[in-house]
C-alpha cells in the first residue's frame, strides 16, 4: 500500500512477506522497488480502511455493546461482565482471533484494567509478572505522545513507562507537557480513560410491556399487529417505509424468540407485514412457545427507506404491480428468499455463467439480454442441466465430426438433423484452463432437440467426453 506524502509515493503498509524481505514502512516506493523489483504496490484508500474497521466493530457487537474504534487499525472492547458468556477472557479472545483469522486478519490482543493500558499492551508487547509490571515495562512510545515529547523523554533517559511514572508527575508535566503526565496517569490507571463507544443509530422501535405475562400466542400476534400499526404511523410521519421488520418476544423465563421479515419494497402496510409474520410463524418447525408467557414484545425496524404517500391509481396498473410485490414477499417469506428468483443477464461466454439467478425481492441489476436475429431458430436450450449430463455412448462418422447416434438415460437416439459445432472455449484469463467445448444442436428422429457438446478437441484431450447440456423446446 502506498500513499502520497509531500509529493512522493511512500510505503504505507506492507504484508509479512514484504517485511521479511526488508521493506519498511515510510520508504519511498522507488527505494522499495529498487530493493524488490517484483513488489506489488496498491494505492492506499484510508476511508476503505476505516469502513472495514467499522464493519469489524459492528461484528464485535456480538461480544459487547461497548465497542470503540481505535483508528486506524485498532478496536477497544469493554468486556466488563461480558466475558463469562464465552467462559472466560481467554476463550473470548480466542473466539475473536479465530473469527478474524477466517477473515484473513492478523490481530494482537491484550486485556487490561483500563482501555489505554490494553491498547498499549496490544500494540507494544511487553511481558511482566502481572499487568502493572507489564505496563511499566512498556517503552515510552506506547504513551502515544507527540514525536517531540517522545524523543525528549528518551533523551532524558526515561526509556519505559515505569521510568516516567516513578518521577513526580508535576515535574514531568512541567518539562514534557501536561499531555505526558495525563497519559502516564491514565495508562497506570490513576486517571479515568474515557471510552467513547460507537453510536449505533437508534433504529425505529416500538415495544409493549405487560404487567401480567401473555400466554396466548394469538393475543401476542394481535399485540404485534398493534405495534406494526404504531411503527407504520411513525414511518408515515418521516415519509419512510420499512424494508425489514424484526419482532422479539421476551419470555418471563428469560428466553427471547425473535423473527424477522423482509419486504421487496419499503412498506407501511400493517396488514401486509402482519401477514408476512404469520407466514413466517407457519414455517417454523416449532411454533412460538409462550412458556409461562411473554412480558415484553418489541418490534424493530432496522432498515427503512423513503416512501412517499401513495396515491391510488384508477386504471389498476399500480394496484396489480403492488399485488405482485406482495405475492413475491409472501412466497419469499414462506419458502426462503433464495427460492423465489428473477433472472439477470451476465456478459459471459460459458452458457452456465451467462445468467444470474437473484432473489426476486432484490433490485435487478441493469443489463441487456442478447439481441435475437430474425429468422434464426433458438440457439440456446430452455432447460439447462447443471452439471451437464454424461452421454452413455456415442457414435459419429468421423472422430471430429457431429454425432450420428447416442445413448442417454438408457434410450437410444438416432440423430436426424444436426448443426454445429459452436465452439465455446473457457476464457484464457481464467485460473483453471478447462478443455474447449464443441456444441451441437441435434434433433433425433422423433423430434427431440438436444444441446450436446464434446468436452475437448481431439488432440487437446485423449478421450473427449460427450455431454447433454440442455434440451430445446
Amino acid at each position, binding site marked *: 500500500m502506498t500513499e502520497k506524502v509531500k509529493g512522493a509515493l511512500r510505503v504505507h503498509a506492507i504484508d509479512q512477506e514484504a517485511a521479511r524481505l526488508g521493506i519498511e514502512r515510510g520508504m519511498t516506493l522507488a527505494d522499495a522497488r529498487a530493493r524488490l523489483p517484483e513488489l506489488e504496490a496498491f494505492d492506499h484508500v484510508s476511508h476503505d480502511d476505516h469502513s472495514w474497521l467499522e464493519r469489524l466493530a459492528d461484528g464485535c457487537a456480538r461480544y459487547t455493546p461497548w465497542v470503540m474504534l481505535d483508528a486506524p487499525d485498532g478496536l477497544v472492547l469493554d468486556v466488563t461482565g461480558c466475558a463469562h458468556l464465552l467462559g472466560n477472557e481467554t476463550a473470548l479472545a480466542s473466539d475473536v482471533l479465530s473469527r478474524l483469522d477466517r477473515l484473513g486478519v492478523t490481530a494482537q490482543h491484550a486485556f487490561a484494567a483500563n482501555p489505554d493500558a490494553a491498547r498499549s499492551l496490544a500494540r507494544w508487547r511487553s511481558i511482566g509478572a502481572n499487568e502493572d509490571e507489564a505496563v511499566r515495562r512498556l517503552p515510552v512510545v506506547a504513551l502515544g505522545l507527540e514525536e517531540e515529547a517522545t524523543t525528549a523523554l528518551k533523551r532524558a533517559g526515561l526509556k519505559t513507562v515505569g521510568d516516567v511514572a516513578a518521577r513526580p508527575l508535576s515535574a514531568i508535566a512541567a518539562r514534557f507537557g501536561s499531555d505526558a503526565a495525563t497519559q502516564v496517569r491514565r495508562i497506570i490507571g490513576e486517571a479515568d480513560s474515557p471510552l467513547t463507544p460507537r453510536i449505533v443509530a437508534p433504529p425505529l422501535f416500538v415495544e409493549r410491556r405487560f404487567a401480567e405475562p401473555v400466554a396466548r400466542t394469538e393475543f401476542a400476534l394481535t399485540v404485534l399487529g398493534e405495534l406494526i400499526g404504531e411503527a407504520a404511523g411513525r414511518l408515515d410521519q418521516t415519509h419512510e417505509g420499512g424494508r425489514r421488520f424484526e419482532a422479539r418476544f421476551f419470555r418471563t423465563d428469560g428466553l427471547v424468540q425473535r423473527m424477522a421479515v423482509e419486504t421487496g419494497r419499503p412498506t407501511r402496510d400493517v396488514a401486509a407485514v402482519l401477514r408476512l409474520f404469520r407466514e413466517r410463524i407457519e414455517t417454523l418447525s416449532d411454533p412460538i412457545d409462550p412458556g409461562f408467557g411473554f412480558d415484553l414484545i418489541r418490534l424493530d425496524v432496522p432498515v427503512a427507506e423513503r416512501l412517499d404517500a401513495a396515491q391510488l391509481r384508477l386504471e389498476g396498473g399500480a394496484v396489480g404491480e403492488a399485488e405482485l410485490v406482495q405475492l413475491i414477499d409472501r412466497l419469499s417469506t414462506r419458502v426462503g428468499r433464495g427460492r423465489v428468483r428473477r433472472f*439477470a443477464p451476465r456478459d459471459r461466454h460459458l452458457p452456465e455463467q451467462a445468467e444470474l439467478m437473484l432473489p426476486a425481492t432484490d433490485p435487478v441489476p441493469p443489463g441487456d439480454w442478447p439481441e435475437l436475429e430474425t429468422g434464426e*431458430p*433458438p440457439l440456446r436450450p430452455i*432447460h439447462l*442441466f447443471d452439471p451437464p449430463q454424461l452421454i452413455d455412448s456415442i457414435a459419429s462418422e468421423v472422430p471430429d465430426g457431429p454425432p450420428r447416434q447416442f445413448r442417454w438415460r438408457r434410450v437410444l437416439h438416432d440423430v436426424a*438433423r444436426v448443426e454445429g459445432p459452436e465452439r465455446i472455449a473457457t476464457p484464457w484469463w481464467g485460473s483453471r484452463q478447462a478443455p474447449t467445448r464443441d456444441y451441437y444442436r441435434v*434433433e433425433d428422429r422423433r423430434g*427431440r432437440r438436444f444441446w450436446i457438446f464434446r468436452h475437448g478437441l481431439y488432440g487437446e484431450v485423449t478421450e473427449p467426453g460427450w455431454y447433454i447440456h440442455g434440451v430445446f423446446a
Partner: protein
Amino acid sequence: MPESSTSLSRLRRRVAHIEGARVSGGPARFATGHAAIDAWLGGGLARGRLHEVMADDSEDAGSLSGFAAMLALRIDAGKPLLWLRTETAERRAGKLYASGLGEIGLHGDDLILGLLGDDAALLKAANDAARCAGLGALVVESWGDPKPLDLTATRRLMLAAEASGVTVLLLRGEARESPSVADTRWRVSPAPSIALAADAPGPPAFDLELLRRRAGPAGRRWRVEWNRERRAFQPLDGQALSGAVLPLAAS
C-alpha cells in the same frame, strides 16, 4: 360462414344464460395464432381459466416447458410470468434457462421463478399466486401423480383464476389423466422440425392433441410450429398464414 359462427355464438350465449352462467358472452379468449386450432376452440383458449398440458415422457420436458412459455406469451406478453416448480423438477428436467426462453420470445425480465420444496407447497403457492391480478400468467409445473393434486385442488385453482383473471397453465409431466375441472387439456410431444439450410434443426415444432375440453368436443390433433417473430403458432407445413385469423368452422 361468418354468419353461422355468429349465430353459433349467440346460441351459446343463450344456453349459457339458461344454465345461469355469465351472460357476458363467456370468458375473454386468447388466440394461439394457428387458424385451425382457434376456429375449433371458438376463438382461442379462455383467459382466467385453468388449462392443463400433459407430457408422457420425461424427455419431452423441453416441449412441455416450451409450449407453456409460448402459450403464456400469447396470453399477455409484457406482464410478468410466474413459473412455479419443485426442486425435484429443477434437478431432473434441468434448470429453467432464461436465455433459451428468450430465444422463443419470452423476455428474461418478465420471468419470476419459484422453487418449492414439495408438491403440497407447490399447490399452496399456486393457489396464492393464482389470486394475484398482477401476473400475466401462472405456470405450475408438476411431475408424476402427486397426491395433493386432485379434483379439489384443480377446482380451487380454477376458482382463484376466475376471480383474478389470471390464466393458469398446469403442466403435468409423466402423469396419468386424472379428473380435473380444467377448461382444456392438451398433450404435447416434440415433432420433427422443418430443416433449415445444411439440415440444421429448425424452429420448435410440436404434436398437439386436445384431449379434453369442457365446452365442446375434443380429440383433435395438430402439428404446429412456433414463429418467434410473430409470437404465434402456425401449421407445420411451413406456410404461415398471414393476416387476421379467420373464424372458420373446423372442417
